């Protein structure tokens, strides 16, 4: 009986090189995703497939593709694929950022217009990324109207250790909000420059530790808060939230254009309150119209990240302090958030391969 020799590592890498990452536009071998490859004398092939995010939308497809391609090689008797993820540092920076040294990716959630559900999206985005296995923080940059404490059911006051504020932990997330620092009904009455200082303090004076993603919930507007943030940290990107009607998309476009001017790449548009399913008649109502955000995304040449329904449960669970992706993972709303989180993670991975200009002074 003729013996079939086992393939070499080179041959295994060659077939794995046929797997293209749809978002990064290169093959997974070139991208350095295949690690710890071993071929046993008996023809058992094992390797680690390291994704750039645990929330990878094509995770399962990659695994099946890898198993099939390697399994079809002559001489292979078994394939073991270990799927892992390692979120990469944004911008291939030689050294970590000084302001948030342990944070790999910073994602801003903005809208321009108020009341479109930015905070709800930010909280659920953070929670969905956490559920996928990533280390996630959420910074509430809305100084006047902080809503993160209520939406996450975290009302405790941060402790100080070695001169640094400890983030509040809830639902596996690290949180910091002005609502934690100054709880109760007393308003924060600040002029613009103070807002900038407060946001900077929440980045510099908080012990964020090591995070894969820091999600930043921005207040409405294209002023102090957004500017401070865009100047203080190299943001990986910004996700813009809007509702379908013109009055909301028009303002969302302004917010997006502002971030473009600041060289912060738009990750895409998210449409909130897209439709409502009536519990009485079961009909789908599009209260604010249909497809506004998708049309705006197309016009601006940015990705459309997904649509979220208007649901009683999203509102009710937010008020009770549990993000809907945790409290009702099977609901249409939760599924929409999980889908959007994986889209955001994928877009963020693309940005992490971007390079900033390198400046040298002599």
């Amino acid at each position, binding site marked *: 009986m003729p013996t079939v020799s086992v393939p070499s590592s080179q041959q295994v890498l060659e077939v794995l090189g046929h797997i293209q990452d749809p978002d990064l536009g290169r093959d997974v071998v070139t991208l350095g995703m295949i690690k710890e490859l071993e071929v046993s004398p008996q023809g058992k092939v094992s390797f680690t497939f390291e994704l750039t995010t645990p929330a990878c939308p094509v995770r399962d497809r990659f695994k099946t593709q890898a198993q099939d391609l390697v399994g079809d090689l002559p001489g292979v008797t078994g394939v073991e694929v270990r799927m892992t993820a390692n979120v990469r540092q944004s911008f291939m920076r030689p050294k970590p950022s000084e302001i948030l040294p342990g944070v790999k990716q910073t994602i801003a959630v903005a809208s321009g217009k108020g009341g479109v559900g930015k905070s709800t999206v930010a909280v659920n985005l953070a929670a969905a990324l956490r559920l996928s296995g990533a280390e996630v923080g959420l910074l509430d940059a809305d100084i006047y109207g902080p809503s993160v404490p209520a939406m996450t059911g975290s009302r405790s006051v941060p402790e100080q250790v070695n001169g640094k504020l400890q983030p509040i932990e809830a639902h596996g997330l690290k949180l910091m909000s002005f609502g934690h620092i100054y709880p109760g009904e007393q308003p924060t009455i600040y002029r613009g420059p103070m807002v900038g200082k407060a946001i900077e303090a929440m980045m510099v004076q908080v012990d964020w530790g090591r995070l894969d993603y820091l999600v930043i919930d921005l207040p409405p507007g294209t002023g102090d808060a957004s500017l401070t943030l865009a100047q203080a940290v190299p943001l990986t990107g910004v996700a813009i939230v809007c509702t379908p009607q013109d009055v909301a998309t028009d303002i969302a476009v302004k917010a997006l254009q502002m971030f473009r001017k*600041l*060289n*912060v790449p738009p990750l895409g548009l998210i449409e909130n309150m897209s439709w409502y399913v009536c519990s009485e008649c079961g009909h789908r109502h599009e209260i604010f119209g249909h497809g506004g955000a998708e049309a705006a995304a197309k016009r601006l040449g940015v990705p459309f990240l997904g649509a979220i329904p208007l649901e009683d449960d999203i509102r009710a669970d937010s008020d009770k302090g549990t993000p809907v992706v945790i409290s009702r993972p099977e609901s249409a709303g939760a599924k929409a958030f999980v889908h959007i989180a994986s889209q955001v993670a994928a877009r963020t991975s693309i940005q992490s391969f*971007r390079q*900033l200009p*390198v400046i040298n*002074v002599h």
Partner: protein
Amino acid sequence: MDIAWEDGKRSTYTGEQLRWACPCAECRGEGGAPGRLARLTTLSPDELLIKDVTLVGQYAVQIAFESGHATGIYTFPYLRNLGA
């Protein structure tokens, strides 16, 4: 100062060139009023020497000169244009 751009191009600048190109309101003028640079023909040597350069977010750099002048935020497109 030199910059290696994302696309591989390199630009080199002298402190003097950057100082005269300072985009801040004091140097450029605002509201139609001419700025300081429009009224001057020479600058002292410590005005032309770069002391420090810091990154502003990911869209610009802030350049501090030995004289203490540091209000100019030079955006990357502006610098790219200047260094062409």
